[in-house]
């Protein structure tokens, strides 16, 4: 998971939180034709649900994210991955809204995934875990939302793979989503995006320690997984942000004339790779990258239920994001225009590349805050503000 690098200290945090789990016994019928069950989802909630149950917002995370989107866990200083945007007075204001962040099925952060115990064998699923899709992730979350007794979500929001889940939510359950905020995402994975994921998967599977996925008794395929993550991190940055962050600076004052990490950028990637191995399951990375490669809501599969979609959209992209470039967000916008769906699209100026959705706080906050305000309250309150 990528961490926001915003330096502002947080006086407005949701504070101590804990990850909860929800298990449903009924089988999940997967897009592959297979079944999975029982399924556990890890999730966190912030703020409180109002009496009408009309203020619930579902936050969806990116590829390696988890349910811990805001606040801190007891005995830990790590804030959630979207700490800057979720909390009292923030974009997703926990004074007003009930925020739910759910981990995805197939993950390794408390939800059922390849590292979970297979009830049939008593051992980790490993490659016996069925293939999952973004639609399957949404279907699992739908069970959670039912369990929480929420009929209609005020908003579903997320960036990158989280944005894909947003688009899938609206396509699967348009009547249950009042508004949607897909950020730095796409209607379909492009060949370039699939290509990066394939290299990522190959680097994991090329590590002998991967053992055809059955490595749980022996430990992670560290080398392969760390290279996989290094590739990811290159695609999250931009040429500009790498120049700013590292330039050609050296870790010591001279070349080693060896294959140690001479340059800061090498050191950074190695550090990121090594850290990732400690917190993310290699098989989960394989399964989830495959799920997003399968993602394709183009050609009429997005909002297939005719013209009656009254979900409002706020679509955000970032100019320097070359992994999920703005033209992919514009494709979402074009699909919405064709269906005459109420939508706002903004391409924000940022040099941070794909990482921008975690880093660019100020402009995203303005857009999201007012968009939610309008969705929740309508125009009337705006008029009274004397604007």
């Amino acid at each position, binding site marked *: 998971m990528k961490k926001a690098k915003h330096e502002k200290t947080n006086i407005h945090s949701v504070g101590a939180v804990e990850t909860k789990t929800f298990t449903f016994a009924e089988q999940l019928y997967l897009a592959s034709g297979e079944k999975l069950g029982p399924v556990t989802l890890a999730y966190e909630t912030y703020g409180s649900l109002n009496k009408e149950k009309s203020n619930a917002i579902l936050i969806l995370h990116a590829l390696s994210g988890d349910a811990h989107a805001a606040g801190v866990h007891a005995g830990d200083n790590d804030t959630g991955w979207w700490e800057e945007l979720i909390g009292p007075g923030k974009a997703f204001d926990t004074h007003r809204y009930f925020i739910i962040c759910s981990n995805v099925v197939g993950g390794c952060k408390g939800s059922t995934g390849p590292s979970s115990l297979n009830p049939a064998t008593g051992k980790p699923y490993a490659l016996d875990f069925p293939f999952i899709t973004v639609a399957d992730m949404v279907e699992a979350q739908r069970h959670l939302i039912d369990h929480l007794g929420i009929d209609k979500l005020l908003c579903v929001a997320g960036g990158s793979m989280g944005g894909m889940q947003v688009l899938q939510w609206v396509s699967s359950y348009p009547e249950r989503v009042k508004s949607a905020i897909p950020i730095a995402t796409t209607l379909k994975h492009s060949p370039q995006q699939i290509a990066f994921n394939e290299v990522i998967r190959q680097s994991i599977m090329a590590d002998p320690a991967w053992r055809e996925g059955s490595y749980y008794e022996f430990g992670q395929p560290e080398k392969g997984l760390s290279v996989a993550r290094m590739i990811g991190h290159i695609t999250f940055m931009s040429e500009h942000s790498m120049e700013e962050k590292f330039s050609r600076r050296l870790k010591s004052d001279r070349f080693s004339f060896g294959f140690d990490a001479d340059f800061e950028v090498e050191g950074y990637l190695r550090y990121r790779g090594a850290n990732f191995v400690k917190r993310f399951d290699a098989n989960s990375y394989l399964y989830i990258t495959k799920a997003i490669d399968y993602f394709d809501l183009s050609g009429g599969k997005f909002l297939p239920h005719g013209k009656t979609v009254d979900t409002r959209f706020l679509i955000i992209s970032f100019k320097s994001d070359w992994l999920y470039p703005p033209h992919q967000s514009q494709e979402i916008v074009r699909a919405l225009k064709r269906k005459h769906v109420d939508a*706002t*699209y903004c*391409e924000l100026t940022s040099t941070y590349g794909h990482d921008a959705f975690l880093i660019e706080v100020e*402009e995203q906050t*303005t857009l999201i805050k007012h968009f939610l305000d309008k969705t929740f309250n309508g125009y009337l309150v705006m008029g009274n503000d004397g604007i």
Partner: protein
Amino acid sequence: MMEFNTQLDHQIIYSIVKSDSRVLDLGCGEGELLYPLVRDKHIRAQGIELNDQSIQECVKKGLSVFHDDIESGLREFPDNAFDYVIMNQSMQEVKKVDCVIQEALRIGTQVIVGFPNFAHRTSRFSLFFRGKSPVTKSLPYLWYDTPNVRFLSITDFRDFCVEKNIRIVEEHYLGEKTVVRFFPNLFALNAIFVLTKKDEAALKSGGKGYRLVL
């Protein structure tokens, strides 16, 4: 009482747009025109704007906006998706004016166009006596920093509509603070035209009888 925008062109467009209609504003800026219409006339508003700071301001007002440019931003809208497509003070910044107006007429029942009149007397004076490119109240830019790429007069635009078989439903001529009634091509700084497709107009003019302001 509702607060009117102080700009005369905004007041005129405000009065043209009917309540509860669907409106697309091309080059909507910070939503100065759309917001009073949403607030008072409950229109369903959509803006298109290129400047991202302006988009932030629109969102603060609760308006829906697409970050896009006018020339490519209309293609995907279905036919007659809007009752009005507004292009106020943005047409002169567009290169393919013909295409944009045809597209606007396709997606909107009526198209409201507001533009500065290049044949205003001060422009004529500047060019004729001083031999200099005009800088006027409605065309305030110097030749080297103007965003405008099209320079037209009221007469030019009327000719254009005839040539392109576009029906003019209303014409409004604006001076600095009040409307202009005589010799608009000489005395008006700005003009606002309301246009429709020829067939559309024929269909409706039978019953309603549009007011032609001269």
